[in-house]
């Protein structure tokens, strides 16, 4: 699918050689949904009078406003915090970004070491490194988490 002008405007480090668009724009799911492998919800804690709003999902009793809350979401999915963002064949990794003390984005590592990100309501992209999304919009990578691949497979290849 090539490149996306909007994405390149928001993330100046993106260029023709370090990323490619892998989906159409889709407003119904976001980065967390994409990272956990559930594209049927926009993962955010949106409630009205204590009741969930249709189309949104967030695990009960966890905070959507803090990096710790996001970490807990991935702990629920079998991840644990680790130090290295490098590619390891038997490990599946996610990277949580933080901006102004709040979680802003999560990227998931693909087989081969590249990363995949859903950019909010926009498109999915495959990007060679995490650095290309660091900056004004998503801030910096704060936490790396990993889990063993299931039968040697990753979340979207199960």
């Amino acid at each position, binding site marked *: 699918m090539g490149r996306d002008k909007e994405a390149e*405007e928001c993330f100046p480090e993106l260029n023709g050689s370090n990323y490619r668009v892998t989906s159409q*724009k889709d407003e119904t799911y976001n*980065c967390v949904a994409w990272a956990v492998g559930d594209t049927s919800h926009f993962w*955010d804690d949106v409630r009205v009078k204590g009741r969930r709003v249709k189309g949104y999902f967030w695990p009960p009793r966890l905070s*959507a406003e803090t990096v710790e809350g996001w970490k807990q979401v991935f702990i629920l999915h079998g991840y644990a915090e680790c130090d290295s963002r490098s590619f390891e064949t038997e490990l599946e990794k996610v990277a949580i970004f933080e901006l102004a003390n709040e*979680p802003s984005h999560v990227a998931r590592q693909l087989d081969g070491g590249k990363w995949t990100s859903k*950019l*909010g*309501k926009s498109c999915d992209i495959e990007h060679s490194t995490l650095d290309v999304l660091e900056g004004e919009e998503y801030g910096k990578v704060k936490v790396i988490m990993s889990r063993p691949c299931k039968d040697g497979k990753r979340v979207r290849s199960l």
Partner: protein
Amino acid sequence: MKARSTEATDGPFERFDRLFRAVTSVPKSEVEKLEARERIKNRRSRAQKKAAKLRKAAKNEP
């Protein structure tokens, strides 16, 4: 000083007109940039959440 005295004598229409011209003079490309930045956000902002609550509450009112 001249501009100030003009503003002081402006009626509501002139004031609105001046404001409207100021708002519409934002270049289209800037608006598109803001929209793009909004689109790549992975979380709904507090303002959006509050607006959704208000809309939902208004619907439920008799």
